[in-house]
């Protein structure tokens, strides 16, 4: 007998887990397939978890999920070679009963999420790579082929939750190959530090409180990219990510970029004495709205990173992944209840739900940002260093009068950017992209 499921979910990251959980909970028969040894085995990074998206799937997740710290403070840094100018926001309001953001370690979190998925009734098979989709004569997707013996497995729908560089959709001709200027390559390390040291260094009241630092400027060495640093319970996650095509062009090795970041005088003291535990490199889809592939077809749909659902400006990904997974599941549950087949036409339901959600709205809002940054690198180089110079001159007491200092700072900025007109146009472009 061949096996037939209501749905097959390819991938056990946040998007696949969300989709499988919601469907299984509603009584659909769900098979989830991941190539890793166990869910999360390929996702060994620290990250920010946005509570809201998960809360809508598992309301009481805080009772059992492995959470590191909740974020009470956010720092934004503009880096130049030896300085940083920053803004920070900290609030005791973030010490709420149900905190809004947490730092997590993905390996542990994904494992926990997967356990909930199985408890909800989905079947998971691991160490199994989906090789291809099976289509019927009419071109409708009816199942998957794996790298194991035993033939195809069939389902009414295949949910592609295979992440940014998943090749199943590409191989089946459902989505185009990703372009190097539509993905960032992020390298990240986890550094071990005793809990008390983290608390002291980041001025934290408790072992549950955490800090996030977001960095632009010299951290990306002229490429389009950002750096970040999070505090976990007993470790610090630090990394940089830049557009892949920029790495290819500048030939700067990613780990060297990260090393420079770690040696920066503003960063080095935070990491002093820490022991490096893990090093990972991973792609992040950052092409934004215009890079989103076709999301549905007869018998299949795409969720999560595979659909380019990442808001690079706000460094949000897993929440878009979970939300798209949930919306896909809810759509499929409804189709099943109404006895409707999973056709591209009927999947308009999913496309509409997505369009109505923050996922598509935010991606649309920042639609122009990827293009803007790609074409206006000065935004990430000239301005941060000019700003740092200006601040230094402003603070240094050296017998020069203040008016002269201000004029110098402005002249410096004008010179760096080559004229006021250029600056005005930069401002206009940023405002337009942000709107």
């Amino acid at each position: 007998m061949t096996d037939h499921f209501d749905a097959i979910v390819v991938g056990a990251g946040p998007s696949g887990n969300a989709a499988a959980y919601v469907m299984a909970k509603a009584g659909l028969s769900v098979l989830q397939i991941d190539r890793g040894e166990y869910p999360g085995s390929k996702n060994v990074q620290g990250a920010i978890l946005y509570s809201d998206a998960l809360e809508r799937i598992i309301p009481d997740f805080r009772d059992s999920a492995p959470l590191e710290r909740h974020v009470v403070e956010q720092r934004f840094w503009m880096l130049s070679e030896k300085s940083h100018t920053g803004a920070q926001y900290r609030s005791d309001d973030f010490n709420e009963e149900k905190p809004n953001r947490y730092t997590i370690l993905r390996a542990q979190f994904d494992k926990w999420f997967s356990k909930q998925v199985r408890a909800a009734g989905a079947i998971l098979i691991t160490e199994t790579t989906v090789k291809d989709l099976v289509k019927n004569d009419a071109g409708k997707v009816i199942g998957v082929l794996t790298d194991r013996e035993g033939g195809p497995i069939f389902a009414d729908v295949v949910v592609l939750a295979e992440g940014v560089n998943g090749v199943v959709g590409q191989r089946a001709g459902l989505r185009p190959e990703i372009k190097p200027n539509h993905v960032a390559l992020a390298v990240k390390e986890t550094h071990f530090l005793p809990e008390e040291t983290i608390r002291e260094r980041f001025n934290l009241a408790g072992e549950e409180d955490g800090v996030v630092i977001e960095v632009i400027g010299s951290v990306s060495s002229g490429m389009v990219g950002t750096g970040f640093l999070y505090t976990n319970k007993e470790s610090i996650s630090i990394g940089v990510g830049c557009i892949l095509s920029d790495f290819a062009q500048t030939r700067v090795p990613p780990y060297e970029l990260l090393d420079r970041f770690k040696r920066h005088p503003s960063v080095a003291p935070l990491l002093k004495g820490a022991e490096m535990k893990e090093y990972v490199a991973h792609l992040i889809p950052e092409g934004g709205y215009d890079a989103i592939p076709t999301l549905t077809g007869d018998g299949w749909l795409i969720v999560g990173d595979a659909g380019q659902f990442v808001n690079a400006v706000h460094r949000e990904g897993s929440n878009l992944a979970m939300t798209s997974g949930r919306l896909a599941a809810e759509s499929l549950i409804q189709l099943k209840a109404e006895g409707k087949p999973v056709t591209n036409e009927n999947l308009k339901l999913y496309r509409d739900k997505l369009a109505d959600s923050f996922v598509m709205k935010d991606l649309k809002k920042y639609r122009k940002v990827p293009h803007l940054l790609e074409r206006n690198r000065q935004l990430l180089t000239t301005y941060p260093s000019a700003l740092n110079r200006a601040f230094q001159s402003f603070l240094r007491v050296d017998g020069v009068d203040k008016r002269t200092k201000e004029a110098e700072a402005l002249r410096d900025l004008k010179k760096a950017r080559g004229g006021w007109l250029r600056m005005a146009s930069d401002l206009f472009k940023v405002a337009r992209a942000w709107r």
Partner: protein
Amino acid sequence: MDEPIIEALEPPKPAPTGLNIVVCIKQVPDSAQIRVHPVTNTIMRQGVPTIINPYDLFALEEALRLRDEYGGQVTVLSMGPPMAEDALRRALGLGADKAVLITDRRFAGSDTLATSFALTAALTTLAEERPIDIVFTGKQTIDGDTAQVGPGIARRMGLNQLTYVSAIDSLDLAAQGIVVRRRSEGGVQVLRSKLPCLITMLEDTNTIRRGTVQDLLRAARADVTVWSAEQAGVEDPMKCGLRGSPTVVKRVFAPSPRAEKAEMVTVEGKTPAQIGDALIDLLFARDPKLEAVVTAAAR
């Protein structure tokens, strides 16, 4: 007169054919991923992935091969905490037919004596259902490393024990006999034994198969039988766990490195013989006593 009562007999079950094999597997921390806490220098077990003791996979594969050739069933048996069910499910995905976990607070802290006692009880209970032809274990584990559990079971169950087996040459179901190769010091022994027997399998003797899609689906859906000490047939709980374990770990420490430094010596020579002679001259020059001992022994 009453009608004669005709007993409604269930149709007799077909007698089970083929071999009944049980493979003992242990879930162990993946030693490749164990981390030492940089501050307290203790092993951080939390978050360390667990795996099936790698040696046990050679036992499992050998059992599956015998089943495929002679028919029958392979049951995997483990003693451990509830999460050891993961290891058993994995074994089902590799092709095992049934899985039994014996888990009980009273098993905690078992040394090899108590472990083989508990496993023997479970094996005996399993054998009541259907006599066992072969019990397999791995040669040893990667965390305890004692290689005692297999022989301990064999002794208790009164089974012939075939240890360090590198290959199974032949098996005769009708005559209840088996011929195996066993690695021993100085050579390979070919042993013939009666069934039932216990085999501890040597490493690198085969390659564990990849289960098929159907194996994995079956494993994901299968119920792992979970037994408490009582259900496993343990009669004397004093022989279990910490209380049944005479072994006491007094201290764990990393041996300090030897004081004397190793040194690399270089000698010249055109042929291997010349190099060898030059090396021996050098060593003898350094240590005249060694020369006396060696030349005396050579005479």
